């Protein structure tokens, strides 16, 4: 495919999804807090007979103990591998027999169990989800299997320059914070993890009062409430308050790193910390990022790819998380041209702060961010992902409307101001993967 800009949209997903149109004051979802603290979100989409469910728990890699890197990831991977009622293979066969799926996994901030099934199989699907969430057994043999599999996957990922660069960059950008460590851990750290570590982590982190459940599709609010209450209503809330990880703070200095690989291209990645979605600067930053490297009309795309033929992929993107955020720029170019592309990116970063963006560039970015919103909520699965994410970040169901309004108000002066604040080339860490000197 040719222009490779679709990928970027995934990264700005949350931001862009939030730009939901307010027209008709359609309510995105029904929200209620169950007695044990679970936040339940329900969106009725009756036209297609399927249901998507997400259970998000605040149990991501940010909670990994310093000497237990990869623990949340391993726990997520083993979560569906055995429950009080079924072995992992029995669970797989049960859901796949009806053409559905039940998956679990961890990200930086959270652990999510996802289920998709046809409406007629909703009871089975919800039974499996509740078994997985409430009664996982973490069998010893399954933990060992997953440890070996994750170690092999980490080894293989070392051949992907983009993954190698992103890992190295996170280490620099979030030095001293859990975000600086890879979610999947390292081969060594994963090798040290035990079944007891997994069980203890889940026992301590999975709790109803930090859990969000979204039910989206051919289901009514009453039905969803009844089914969720029947399965999760007796999940007891612990007395102690949930743990709160530290917020990321900027490391004292920026650094450069290079990783040698025998490749024909160099992968270049600039990165720094940026702002959360709750920060007023977030909206002009989203616009600035789109102008700089967001789409196929962006400055970097135009200069590096279209005018110079130096890269197939060149992007910038903001990644807001719960306890920190980053902004990054990336390009892949033939080895000999890496210094030229690095210089171009630095120049374009600086230019964003030096002069105001043109009206058409500004208009395009804002209209795109606002106007493309409905495209990204066009399936039940996407709606469910969006709902649990905005709830977990504490953005509120009206965030969509607010986002649209705030993006709409961003001016060229705002963009220049945030670019001056965040795009100073010297404030970026830099990683290059490829043939290095």
């Amino acid at each position, binding site marked *: 495919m040719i222009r490779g800009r*679709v990928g970027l949209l995934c990264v700005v997903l949350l931001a862009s999804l939030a730009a939901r149109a307010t027209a008709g004051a359609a309510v995105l979802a029904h929200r209620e807090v169950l007695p044990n603290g679970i936040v339940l979100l329900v969106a009725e989409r009756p036209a297609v007979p399927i249901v998507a469910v997400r259970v998000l728990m605040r149990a991501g890699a940010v909670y990994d103990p310093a000497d237990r890197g990869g623990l949340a990831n391993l726990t997520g991977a083993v979560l569906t591998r055995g429950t009080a009622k079924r072995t992992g293979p029995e669970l797989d066969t049960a859901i796949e027999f009806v053409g559905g799926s039940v998956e679990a996994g961890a990200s930086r901030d959270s652990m999510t169990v996802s289920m998709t*099934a046809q409406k007629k199989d909703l009871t089975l699907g919800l039974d499996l989800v509740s078994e997985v969430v409430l009664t996982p057994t973490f069998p010893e043999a399954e933990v060992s299997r997953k440890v*070996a599999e994750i170690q092999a996957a980490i080894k*293989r990922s070392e051949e992907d320059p983009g993954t190698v660069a992103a890992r190295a*960059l996170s280490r620099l950008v979030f030095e001293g914070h859990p975000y600086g460590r890879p979610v999947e851990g390292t081969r060594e750290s994963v090798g040290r993890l035990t079944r007891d570590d997994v069980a203890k982590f889940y026992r301590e982190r999975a709790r109803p009062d930090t859990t969000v459940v979204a039910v989206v599709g051919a289901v009514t609010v009453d039905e969803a409430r009844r089914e969720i209450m029947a399965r999760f209503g007796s999940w007891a809330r612990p007395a102690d308050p949930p743990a709160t990880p530290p917020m990321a703070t900027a490391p004292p200095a920026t650094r450069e790193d290079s990783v040698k690989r025998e490749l*024909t291209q160099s992968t270049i990645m600039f990165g720094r910390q940026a702002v959360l979605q709750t920060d007023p600067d977030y909206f002009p930053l989203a616009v600035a990022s789109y102008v700089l490297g967001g789409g196929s009309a962006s400055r970097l795309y135009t200069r590096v790819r279209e005018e110079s033929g130096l890269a197939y992929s060149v992007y910038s993107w903001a990644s807001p998380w719960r306890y920190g955020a980053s902004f990054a720029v990336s390009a892949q170019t033939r080895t000999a041209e890496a210094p030229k592309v690095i210089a171009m990116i630095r120049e374009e970063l600086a230019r964003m702060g030096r002069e105001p963006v043109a009206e058409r560039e500004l208009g395009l970015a804002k209209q795109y961010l606002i106007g493309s919103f409905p*495209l990204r909520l*066009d399936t039940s699965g996407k709606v469910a992902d969006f709902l649990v994410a905005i709830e977990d970040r504490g953005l509120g169901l009206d965030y969509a409307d607010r986002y649209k309004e705030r993006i709409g108000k961003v001016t060229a002066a705002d963009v220049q101001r945030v670019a001056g604040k965040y795009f100073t080339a010297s404030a970026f860490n830099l990683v290059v993967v490829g043939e290095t000197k």
Partner: protein
Amino acid sequence: MIHRPPRGGRYNRTVRIAILLLLIVSLLVPSSAPAADRVVAATLDNGLRVLLLEDPRSPIVSFQVWYRVGSRNEHRGSTGIAHFLEHLMFKGTPSHGPKQFARLVEENGGQDNAFTSQDVTSYYVDIAADKIDLIIDLEADRMQNLLLDPKEITSEREVVIEERRTRTEDDPGGFLGEEVSSIAFKAHPYGAPIIGWMEDIRRVTPEEIRAFYKAYYVPNNAIVVAVGAFRAADVLEKIKKRFGRIPRGKTPPPLLAIEPVQNGERRVSVTKQAELPIVYMAWHVPNYKSDDSVALELLSTILSGGRASRLYRDLVYQRQLALEAGGDNSYFSIDPNLFWFWATPMPGQTPEKLEAELSAHMERLKTEPVTDEELARAKNQVEAAFVYQEDSVHQRASLLARFELAGGYAMKDSFLTKIRALTAADLTRVARTWFVPERKSVGVLLPKP
């Protein structure tokens, strides 16, 4: 980790097959409801085929133009030309300058992209339904009036070369896939990579690209598909008005090459910087024109549709010989193509071992009927996937186009009927017929020490 954008799309389903599996399954799955009944289909006087389906659930539309041209229409020495032209379709016409396509779409809140496969080149825009006039105008314009400025070609050539480096030169899976395809086909253009050989990308001239555009980008070689919140009658009128002006072109030249029957196993082995070996096995199989291909679809689901599937359950889960393993059929291929098997050995396991294990699974399919549970599960998975794809207007449009290319969008409905009718004995017979050693090509990638 800093979240990085996944690469935008793909041009080749055989590269990194594993990752594409879910997508392919979803493409394969026509709608269970008789959606075909509601499709408004028309062929304009100039030969343009139009398929429209009203779907009012979201205020959006997926508007797609599919040209019946891909790498199969290329010749030795100028491989990659279809894909190169796809890039140049974004480089403007006299009325919409070089950078205007993307700008206009983004300014209107739309997302557009394109892909080239062995058989087709497809362009799509997903956008608010009230912007459909703009998209009709843009697509009709570039069907006929592409600039193909030599200056733009020069700079875009470098972009395509970088794309090739990313996808093939620096990607072990992509690299090996290309090698296996090239030994599997001696006569048919499916043996050449979609992106083209590096030497051809460097050489191909603006004149050749222009001639290719003139030959294949004609209304009588294209399908327009739109699904979304519109009135089909209105949109059909608009399409007639705008696309109807474009004159019918000459019928594009037929592809004459027929792949001769393979007479013995073929092998290729490559060494590259990589962390783990890769094994690919590919068998020549029939396409949608044969009912055996429907059985191959089900076999592919039984082998690798989910965690209860045979290859995952045995090689990845129970015996931990592979990090991943799967199989994939080429149902929609315009000419007969390959059924792929692949595996990545776990550290400490050899590619020889995995090749033997994949072969053993193949032999088992020939000698032992699949169980009733396996058969029912695979059928249910295919049927459910039909229902899931109904949720996205983009997927609905793509699927209509796929079936139309394979002989008619109404085939959507008979596909599922054929799936339901398959028996375990059918699958055994089909496995015996097609998975014979003489029709096999094997590729092994070994990490450079």
